[in-house]
């Protein structure tokens, strides 16, 4: 038996999906260990080994590939607990990072504050030394400034330093020298150097991306080192791959120094998994949502493809690296409820995470969380949570809600819990609006594909808020991203600047440069154990009309003559005009290469259609809140393990799975599809559903 394992390290839980070569799949979940996330990972591998009746060494030998994503870096930024970070930059420019080009995103909102910078001003230090716009030295780099900066960083116990100098995109020499000095003077400090990470013009984009990389670097580096060490202990010699924000996977040695490429590592696998589950029912346009312990991610799929951006933001901070277009907000099971100065009930973005965790975990948490509210509302099984490994303390949850929420607002405990759920549901609905309505799409036309441990408890409420009639909860919903990871290919994005008018390029030069990039990428993919037959290379050109300052990316096939014509067409499609007739010269700025190493995808076994009805899966009832009726009722309770293809339920109902609980509120019904996934729909809207779903429901 050969195994492939997808591992998603979240802020609260670490999820595992193990797929055997014959197609069977098993799901595991352990509590994350944020101080050393690799501990939870090893703990999980131990449990997996036990479950297969193997020792850890034998398991190691049976595993071909571990693919793994982490929200370690994302959460560090969202909760601002990354490394103590310093910035070394060209004298005169140390505020660019904080100024963010002077933007205030909400122009009419005078209460809208700037973002806290990742490095405080007293740790943003200047160095004399200047390159001109073409990379020629105007002022030599000051050794004295480097030394004194290193001293300050040491005294201030800085854990990471970003180095970004003016015009370093054109000449990396000064940055390399500075990095060498810092490396020597500050052993163990994480260095993030702009000309290595992002050798592209635009100072603000580069300084922001480099600082983000520094801020999250030590966390990721420590994590990967610990992980490699632990895997070595159990003699794992298969392939380890790390999920990147661009939806592809990569070898750990590569990503260690490029931590910012994992800023959306966890959620990046979600859209891929969503595309897979949507395709079962022919749903190409859908929204994937993933509610974990700390964050909530939403992404839009069009025609089964995730949307992609080459520059984006994390918490209003510029990140100029290719990534999937995912909106993340601070809402999860661990989100803490609190009362703001205006006496309004708020949820998050602070999260109790895995440590101290929700109050009901009894691991030291004192502030009430979303999970605590869900428990009080009867949505979670107190005795069988996380497969029975965590006993939830209802009394403690009630007490915390009473002290922190109910009493200050003059509510009952139940009212407090209902309020907490409503607020967080509204927050998540706003996250879904951000990926649909704000782009001019009507969310009602997009089924919700629901993931994460918390998603299935809240999906009906989110759908109700947005009037979405259809949702799908995959059987593997609680480890959705872990599943997506096993479906992802290796992806490397490379860029090389080659600014020139296209009609003035030496013949064959483009092809030559692309060949060089491909050769390098092929070598990298080989070190990642990809066979040549499984490699694909997608070169493209960033092109523009002369004197423009932004480019259009146009796919480029080797030997193709029509790339200029394609550029004109693409410019017209995107921007409403083209200048072919005016014979305006066209420039190439960058050559890009996306290199793909195809991986073997898991296949899940189909279930036979069951003739039994759902009552065979009934396991009693639970007192739970039914929002449509605004009261607690004895709600029928079902065991997911005994719900088979073709069975259906009428809301209100609760379905307990080993690692999550699906809450079906009164307006919704549910049917189990041939892979055992749960398809939920609003009972009064069956006629509006896609045909494939109507057939399933009938």
């Amino acid at each position, binding site marked *: 038996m050969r195994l492939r394992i997808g591992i998603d390290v979240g802020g609260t839980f670490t999820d595992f999906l193990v797929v055997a070569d014959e197609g069977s799949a098993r799901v595991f979940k352990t509590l994350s260990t944020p101080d050393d996330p690799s501990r939870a990972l090893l703990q999980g591998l131990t449990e997996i080994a036990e479950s297969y009746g193997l020792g850890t060494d034998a398991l190691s030998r049976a595993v071909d590939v571990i693919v793994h994503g982490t929200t370690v870096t994302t959460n560090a930024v969202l909760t601002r607990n990354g490394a103590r970070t310093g910035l070394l930059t060209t004298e005169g420019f140390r*505020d660019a990072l904080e100024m963010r*080009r002077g933007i205030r995103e909400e122009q*009419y909102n005078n209460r809208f504050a700037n973002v806290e910078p990742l490095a405080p001003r007293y740790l943003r230090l200047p160095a004399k030394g200047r390159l001109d716009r073409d990379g020629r030295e105007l002022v030599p780099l000051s050794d004295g400034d480097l030394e004194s900066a290193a001293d300050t960083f040491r005294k201030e116990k800085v854990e990471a330093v970003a180095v970004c100098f003016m015009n370093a995109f054109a000449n990396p020499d000064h940055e390399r020298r500075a990095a060498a000095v810092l490396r020597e003077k500050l052993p163990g400090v994480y260095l993030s150097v702009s000309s290595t990470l992002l050798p592209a013009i635009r100072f603000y984009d580069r300084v922001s991306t480099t600082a983000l990389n520094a801020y999250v670097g030590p966390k990721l580096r420590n994590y990967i080192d610990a992980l490699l060490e632990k895997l070595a202990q159990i003699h794992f010699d298969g392939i380890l791959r790390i999920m990147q924000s661009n939806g592809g996977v990569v070898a750990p040695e590569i990503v260690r120094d490029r931590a910012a490429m994992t800023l959306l590592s966890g959620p990046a696998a979600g859209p891929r998994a969503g595309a897979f589950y949507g395709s079962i029912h022919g749903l190409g346009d859908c929204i994937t949502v993933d509610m974990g312990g700390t964050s909530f991610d939403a992404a839009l799929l069009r025609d089964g493809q995730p949307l992609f951006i080459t520059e984006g933001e994390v918490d209003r901070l510029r990140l100029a690296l290719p990534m999937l277009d995912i909106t993340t907000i601070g809402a999860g099971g661990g989100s803490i409820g609190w009362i703001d100065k205006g006496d309004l009930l708020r949820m998050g973005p602070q999260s109790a995470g895995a440590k101290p965790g929700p109050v009901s975990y009894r691991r030291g948490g004192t502030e009430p969380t979303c999970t605590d509210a869900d428990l009080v509302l009867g949505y979670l099984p107190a005795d069988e949570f996380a497969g029975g490994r965590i006993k939830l303390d209802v009394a403690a949850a009630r007490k915390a809600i009473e002290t922190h929420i109910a009493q200050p607002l003059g509510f009952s405990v139940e009212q407090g819990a209902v309020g907490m759920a409503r607020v967080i549901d509204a927050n998540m609905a706003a996250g879904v609006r951000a990926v649909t309505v704000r782009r001019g799409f009507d969310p009602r036309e997009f089924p919700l594909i629901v993931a994460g441990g918390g998603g299935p408890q809240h999906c009906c409420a989110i759908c109700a808020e947005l009037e979405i009639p259809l949702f799908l909860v995959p059987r593997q919903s609680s480890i959705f991203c872990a599943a997506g990871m096993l479906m992802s290919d290796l992806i490397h994005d490379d860029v090389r600047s080659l600014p020139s008018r296209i009609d003035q390029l030496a013949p064959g030069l483009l092809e030559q440069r692309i060949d060089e990039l491909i050769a390098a990428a092929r070598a990298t993919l080989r070190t990642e154990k990809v066979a040549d037959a499984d490699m694909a290379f997608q070169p493209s050109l960033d092109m523009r009309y002369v004197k423009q300052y*932004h480019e259009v990316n146009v796919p480029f096939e080797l030997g193709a003559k029509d790339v200029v014509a394609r550029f004109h067409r693409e410019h017209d499609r995107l921007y*409403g005009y083209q200048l072919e007739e005016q014979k305006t010269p066209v420039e190439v700025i960058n050559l890009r290469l996306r290199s793909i190493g195809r991986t073997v995808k898991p296949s899940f076994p189909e279930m036979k259609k069951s003739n039994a009805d759902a009552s065979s899966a009934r396991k009693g009832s639970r007192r739970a809140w039914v929002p449509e009726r605004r009261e607690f009722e004895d709600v029928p309770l079902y065991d997911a393990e005994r719900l088979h293809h073709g069975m259906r339920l009428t809301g209100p109902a609760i379905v307990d799975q080993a690692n999550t609980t699906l809450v079906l509120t009164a307006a919704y019904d549910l049917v189990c599809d041939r892979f055992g996934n749960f398809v939920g729909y609003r009972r009064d809207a069956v006629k509006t559903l896609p045909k494939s779903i109507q057939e399933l429901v009938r």
Partner: protein
Amino acid sequence: MSIDPILASVMQRAFKSITDEMSLSLMRTARSPILCEAKDFVTGLYDARGNMLEQTENLPILSFSVGPVCKYLLEYFKDDIHPGDVFFHNDVFSFGNQNNDVAAFKPIFLGEKLVGWAATKGHQADIGGAVKGGYNPQATEVFQEAIRIPPVKVVDRGRVRKDVWDLIFANIRLQIVEEDMRAEIGACTVGERRLKALIEKIGLERFEEHRDYLFASTEKLMREEIRAIPNGVYRGEGKIFFDGRHPGSEFTIRVTITVEDDHVTFDYTGTDKQTDGFVNGTYTSSASATTLTFLQMVNPDIPHNEGMLRPLKFIIPAGTVLNASYPKATTFGNHLCPPNADAIQKALASAMPKRVCAGWNHLLCALTTGRNPRKDEDYVDIFFMGLKGGSGAMDGIDGYDHIGMIDASGGLLDQDYEMFEQQTPHLLVKHEYLRDSAGPGHWRGGLGVDTEFVVGSEDTQLVTFGDGDVRPAFGLFGGKEGTLNFIDLKAPDGTVYRTTSKDLVKGVKKGTRFVQQAGGGGGYGDPRLRPADQVALEVRNGVVSVEAAKDAYGVALKPGTFEVDGVATARLRKGA
């Protein structure tokens, strides 16, 4: 047919997403850094009658004149509007706000029926007239400022009217302006495609019903906001210094704001007469200034469409400095927004103390033109990063650092430093927060900036326009004022010339150091109430000096540290 409120809200968001996409299109295709880097433009959608559906207001001061011009176009061309037409407009005497802000309009048809308009308006790098780049402080009439484009049709049913097109661009210096107007048309086409698809999907009748519902619900939101302001008559003043021609000249803006239940009137009767220089507003630039200032005092989530504007009335008498008569020069008009905003904040401070701001730093801007030796071509640069000072503080929140004048409110971006050096021949030396520039207060004003570059072209021409060099941003309720603006030119031979606020300096030598300070915003509330730890941290960060911590905030630090000396601070703060 019944109204579906969700559809109305989706339509509203769809409009916004279309105007955002138009904005992205123009930003990514334009050549002039004023457009592609600083985003000095607006994109919008309007219905068949010229009512605003939604706008992306990168620069609010340009934004509230597009609707009125659209209505004027309809009246002017009547039934001579056809699918495939494109119109240009900039004329300040037919609802334009500033000569350099040139609009492109594209009508949108379903079949033969006009259903809406897509429009863009951007600050063009040149617009003819006596001075390259357009700011001519010596101008007394519009003819010395710009080529006037009352509406003209430049594309007729898909065919460019070459004679008309060439007439316009024969009167404009820079080739890139022609390219950038093509980019404006392109962005209109993007808007046309998307709005057309949206209306086709919804159906015209249903679209119109829901548009009306959207306008009505927006109007209601706005009226509710106004209802929250106590009824009354409120008066305020703002000062304009120097008309560019008469040193020491001063002008006063006087506003009387009448809040009556659910509507509000801004009456500028009593404002000083127009100047004989270019420091004059136009009706739409002044009404835009008033609108954008007031919008900052109400719920920022109200959609920007015709309904939002209905409860607002403006009385701006012709012949005043805010509404000059033909053929007066008016290029400075957009920049009367800061003193106008001062007048409104001061007027409403007593009625809504938690909604008004202390004074924002006023704009002082520099524009350089010359020949770029590296590219052997002419360039025009508006030096955006130097001009952005701090905003005024308000109850509960510090002013925003380096946000820039209130007419942009953080929508106008710095050039990226490296792009600036690619686009101009200059070498940037410094761009950092300016210590002690923020007006002290319980909540301090936003920080200003200190900027310096070395001029990189021979025989460079420098134009300044703005204010804020005579009186700093005012404090409110015990908060203190911010700092002043200035621009110094330090020639290679050591001579220093401090520019006036409306200057035209010719023959600036290569190697001259351009040094600019943009001041901070005003503070709000007694500075001695500001938490001492916060002051200490700002000293550590180098944005407040040890002396200012002591003198302005009454916070003493233990010598050689950034720790608060509690005893000495208590003594200093006694009586606060």
